[in-house]
């Protein structure tokens, strides 16, 4: 075990996969010699060689296309999209191709691709370096969608994603790269050192896709969150004093519905939190499922706390960000409902 940041945990997962499987190749913009703008691939080219971790032209659609072709050959490509905001040029290759290939070829061809991409705000990135577009992909059958909230999960989930034979989009909340950020942007930055989930085994291990974890046990309301919002929810619980159970979903598709239903049936209340814009966000799917499966257990409407339906603004990003105060408000509101 060693204290690792999320960047280091991701780097460790990539290093291990390159070492164990000669079919793993890593590519993307600036990931080669330089090691990535967030340093997640640092040192990998030097250690594993130029053809195994290399820079690509600036063409996200080309990166995905090449990954699909390599997957058809039998490789296991792990690509980086420099910011999730730049995944749109790749949507056709992702949605029409990677996600559909196994089905349309009767199972003969597949696209065992992992797409790593930093998402979320909180670094003054403005509207084009802050988005969380996970809901666009959770709607697409044939793609798995993952978003870890801590170094331990990041490493274990990333190894699982790379070893998975289906395409996986692996969202990395960039605001968590170097510390467990709870939304209090005015407080001193905390680091992963000393955080229990910043303790990461150096060796190979997996965290299974499709399984939520309980970030906090509680009895009166279930909070469904993922990525940065897990830490925000923890802060909100602290501040509101509401004894909430917080589920860290970790994988959105396939979803750990049973864990969700079990918790909400127990607590009778549910608050859903995500950083992406509200309308049509993944929270909508969660709310639809929860009301369907837990209808008779619910004491109060399910509330969603999310980014406003606006672009992520540069200077005003903390007004956009669904911080602990907004989550705490929602917790109080569901507790007050009769």
């Amino acid at each position, binding site marked *: 075990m060693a204290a690792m940041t999320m960047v280091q945990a991701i780097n460790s997962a990539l290093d291990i996969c390159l070492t164990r499987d000669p079919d793993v190749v890593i590519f993307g913009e600036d990931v080669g010699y330089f090691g990535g703008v967030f340093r997640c691939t640092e040192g990998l080219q030097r250690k594993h060689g130029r053809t195994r971790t290399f820079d*690509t032209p600036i063409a996200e659609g*080309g990166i995905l296309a090449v990954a699909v*072709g390599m997957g*058809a050959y039998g490789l296991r490509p792990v690509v980086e999209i420099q910011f999730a905001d730049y995944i749109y040029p790749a949507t056709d290759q992702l949605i029409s191709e990677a996600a559909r290939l196994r089905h*349309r070829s009767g199972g003969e061809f597949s696209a065992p691709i992992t797409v790593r991409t930093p998402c979320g705000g909180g670094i003054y990135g403005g509207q084009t370096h802050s988005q969380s577009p996970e809901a666009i992909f959770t709607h697409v059958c044939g793609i798995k969608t993952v978003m870890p909230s801590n170094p331990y999960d990041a490493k274990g989930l990333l190894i699982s994603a790379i070893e998975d034979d289906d395409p996986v989009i692996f969202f990395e909340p960039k605001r968590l790269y170097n510390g467990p950020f709870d939304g209090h942007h005015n407080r001193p930055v905390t680091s992963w050192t000393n955080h229990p989930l910043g303790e990461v085994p150096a060796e190979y291990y997996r965290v299974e896709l499709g399984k939520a974890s309980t970030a906090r046990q509680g009895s009166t309301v279930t909070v469904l969150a993922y990525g940065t919002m897990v830490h925000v929810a923890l802060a909100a619980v602290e501040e509101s004093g509401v004894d909430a159970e917080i589920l860290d979903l970790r994988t959105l598709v*396939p979803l750990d519905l049973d864990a969700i239903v079990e918790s909400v049936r127990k607590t009778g209340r549910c608050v859903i939190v995500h950083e992406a814009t509200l309308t049509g966000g993944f929270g909508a799917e969660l709310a639809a499922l929860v009301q369907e499966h837990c209808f008779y257990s619910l004491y109060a409407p399910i509330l969603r706390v999310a980014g406003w339906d606006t672009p992520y603004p540069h200077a005003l990003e903390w007004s956009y960000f669904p911080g602990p105060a907004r989550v705490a408000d929602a917790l109080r509101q569901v507790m007050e409902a009769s």
Partner: protein
Amino acid sequence: MKNEPLPQLHIPEPLHRPGDRPDFGYLNIPEPADTACPDPLVRPSEIRDLAFSLIRVLDADGIATGAWNPKLLPELLRRALAAILLTRAYDDRMYRGQRQGKTSFYMKCTGEEAIAVGQAFALSRDDMLFPTYRQQGLLIARDWSLVDMMCQVYSNSRDRLKGRQMPVFYSSKEAGFFSISGNLGTQFSQAVGWAMAAAYKHDNRIAAAWIGEGATAEPDFHHALTFASIFKAPVILNVVNNQWAISSFSGIAGAEQTTFAARALGFGIPALRVDGNDLLAVYAVTRWAADRARSNGGPTLIELFSYRADAHSSSDDPSKYRPKGEADIWPLGDPMLRLKQHLIRLGEWSEARHSVAEAEATERVRAADREAQSYGTLSDGPGHSPGTMFEDVFKEMPLHLRRQRQQAGY
């Protein structure tokens, strides 16, 4: 500048529309002897002129001549002719099957058969193909089972794609034929990825991809050229310029300005432009590009100049947008007739043998069709069970899909 002309938005328009008398007099068609054949490892900058030429081997009399003559054995030529005849017979039968309601849709490659067939013969059997919907000739030239192809068209119980794909969107790993996509262009850049993987593995198989001249406008075309050139991928990038993209003439794809082969010049990729109705020329350029790719020379772009002699698909009626009879006066002729004429000139073929071969092709297709229909058709079944729809979305069926399948009653 003074007295500037009034700015105008230029909208390209073909020379001839329905009602007009078609005329291809404006086409400049060189003779086979006009074009030199460089070494396959030539520097691309030395052969830029080939992007504006038209490589040909068969002259107007059906004689093979010029520097690009691949000097193929008559036996191979006869096999190629047989594959063309089979492709044509197959198209005719399947098209009629669609008209009879046995399937929902069909696409012919009439007039373009020499492309897929000639290229299949020039490649190794284990090279990987990334086709569009108009290269059925690749499968046929690789002796792939007609019955298997028909079962896909009929979406029947033996359709390996389980009724999921539209007719003609074949896929066969065994045949080295990548799953055809409905989304134009996507295969072009994927082929480059496959080729990069082969190079990464020091595997000397190469990839070949096809795209229509219309679809060159898609990003995948740009990505293919970009990645192939930068990483020197062992891939052959083929643009089939059949003059039409549904109702849009090639000018809507850029043909008024320059050739499609010229697109390669911007990437330092060698460009070959070839008479696509001349099987020998098609073979020769493909072989050249394959040799180059296998020698670590990287990609080649080939423009195959041809004409879509029939409708875009069974849903299309070309008399709405182009003059009747264009195909008949297409100056590069019919690829089947040209190859036939060549073999006869060589003394290796005759009208009589041709009639027999044609009848054989028709009969093979008829027999295959009988067998395929015995496994079902779209209209009459049997097809795959609806429960199969939930399979292969993921490698293992996740819980939500298992529940949906159950809800659907399977």
